[in-house]
């Protein structure tokens, strides 16, 4: 199977080399070649130690880690639609399961397609103009963007957000690895501020039809908490529902269970930093406990473990805050960054009357501070070591 492909690639390769007929498309060719095969380039001088894993392999593991959440999200979109729209339904049957899944698939596939087509077109165009290699970062970003959007987002707005995130969030700074903000979250933030009526409120979370942007009214648990000051235990969602993710919300952020499966894969392979995940969870939990102590209103009294299950907290902690490019590079820096991210997310949720969810904004804010945190950690370390050196003399 793979031999003819290798043979074909080798055959067309000269056309893309310098002076060849398609020399202008060199980086496009290079992207597909290294996508299919690990490049056989070897280090010629300097350090000869190379990690067996390169960026393409790392990125594909993140994509695999996202799949449980993605599949669950597809089912949940359908489930929310059918339970809100065509009651009563026999929710127990296998047929119903596939019906839900099919409905969600129909909603998600166009979103994913739009995200990849628009994003990759821009990435390839920039790589071509700058004579760079095409970077793989967008493989993950392109999947994350539809996963954190409401299921009813209009496709042209999605395309606009993707273009904004890739151009302003990434390419102006020099492409993958140079951006200081998470591009997927930037896409969401763009829509959140540009078209608020499609990104918040209670009319965007449950799709009314397989196509189009019509929606059924149905608040997310977070919005309900904020608006009605209800006691969380008395809401229609049980702790189990929230853990498995059977609630309205952004496409694939609802299921803590599915996200944890991805988290385990990321931790076992060492792609994501366990310090960041742990820090976000601890920071969020600590501030939630603090609010429990104050307990002025019903929102402040929400137990901390509910906060983990609501909204995009877990999704952000596992897939967004851990982005190796926009998070700090030093281990103490990671702790500081993660604790503050978690704490800020819960703080925004509970205290800010305007936004029911705070994860997106808190991660973006801490992304801005990541270089400063790193700088301070390194400065402290230098000071410590120089003091140690001078004391010994």
């Amino acid at each position, binding site marked *: 199977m793979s031999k003819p492909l290798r043979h074909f690639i080798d055959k067309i390769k000269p056309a893309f080399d310098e002076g060849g007929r398609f020399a202008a498309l060199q980086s496009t060719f290079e992207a597909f070649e290294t996508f299919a095969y690990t490049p056989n380039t070897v280090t010629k001088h300097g350090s000869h130690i190379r990690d067996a894993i390169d960026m393409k392999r790392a990125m594909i593991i993140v994509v695999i880690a996202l799949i449980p959440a993605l599949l669950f999200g597809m089912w949940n979109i359908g489930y929310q639609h059918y339970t809100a729209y065509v009651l009563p339904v026999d929710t127990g049957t296998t047929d119903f399961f596939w019906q839900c899944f099919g409905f969600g698939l129909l909603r998600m596939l166009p979103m994913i397609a739009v995200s990849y087509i628009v994003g990759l077109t821009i990435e390839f165009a920039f790589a071509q103009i700058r004579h760079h290699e095409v970077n793989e970062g967008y493989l993950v970003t392109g999947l994350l963007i539809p996963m954190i959007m409401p299921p009813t987002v*209009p496709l*042209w*707005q999605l395309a606009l957000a993707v273009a904004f995130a890739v151009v*302003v969030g990434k390419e*102006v700074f020099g492409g993958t690895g140079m951006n200081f903000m998470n591009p997927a979250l930037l896409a969401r933030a*763009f829509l959140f*501020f*540009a*078209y*608020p*009526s*499609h990104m918040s409120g209670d009319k965007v979370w449950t799709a009314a039809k397989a196509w189009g*942007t019509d929606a059924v009214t149905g608040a997310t648990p977070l919005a309900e908490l904020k608006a009605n000051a209800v006691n969380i235990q008395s809401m229609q969602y049980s702790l189990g529902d929230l853990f498995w993710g059977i609630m309205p919300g952004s496409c694939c952020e609802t299921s803590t269970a599915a996200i944890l499966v991805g988290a385990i894969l990321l931790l076992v392979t060492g792609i994501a930093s366990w310090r960041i995940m742990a820090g976000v969870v601890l920071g969020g939990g600590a501030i939630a406990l603090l609010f429990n102590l104050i307990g002025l209103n019903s929102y402040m009294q929400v137990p901390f473990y509910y906060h983990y299950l609501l909204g995009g907290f877990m999704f952000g902690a596992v897939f967004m805050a851990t982005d190796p490019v926009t998070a700090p590079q030093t281990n103490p820096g990671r702790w500081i960054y993660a604790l503050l991210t978690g704490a800020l997310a819960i703080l925004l949720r509970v205290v800010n009357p305007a936004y029911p969810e705070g994860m997106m904004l808190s991660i973006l804010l801490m992304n801005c501070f990541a270089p400063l945190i790193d700088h301070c950690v390194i400065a402290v370390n230098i000071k410590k070591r120089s003091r140690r050196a001078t004391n010994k003399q």
Partner: protein
Amino acid sequence: MNNKNLKYITLPWRDNNPITVQVLGICSCLAVTAQLKPAVFMAVSVTAVTVLSNLIISLLRNTIPPRIRIIVQLVVVSTLVVLVDQVLKAYFFDVSKQLSVFVGLIITNCIVMGRLEAFAMHNPPLPSVCDGLGNGLGYSFILILLGFTRELLGNGTLWGYPVTERLHDIGYENNGLMLMPPMALILIGLLIWIINSRKA
């Protein structure tokens, strides 16, 4: 008018634009460009102030003691700004209310002080007027461009008249981010990017 003076007028339009090249006057540029109308009035006001202050300072340039020149420049600029403010209040009250403090803040606009320090203090009146006019127009050009883009995309109107009504029927929507100052900064950034890459 000779070629050199003409150049003082045209140079700040692109190659030495006060906003995209010198990166001055950004504050007012973010604040007043959410709509086209205030942007145009702001552009005219700043141009008037730069031209007149350049002329006055250039006439006085040999009598101003160097040690107190900034204060003298400030007095001239403030006088002109107060005049502009009064004119706006008298004849265009609604715009004046919209622009609010930003008319007064023309005093602190770096473009005005920058031209006085860099040009009017060392050049005769006619070139100084040309330089002031050029920089004012360069500033105006960017301001009006931003005002046009932001009002059209953010509000769907131009000069207050609706333009994109038909598009709304087929699902188009106004982009709320365009009305926020951060987007103006991003737009200026993109503009600088385009200009720089064309120069390169």
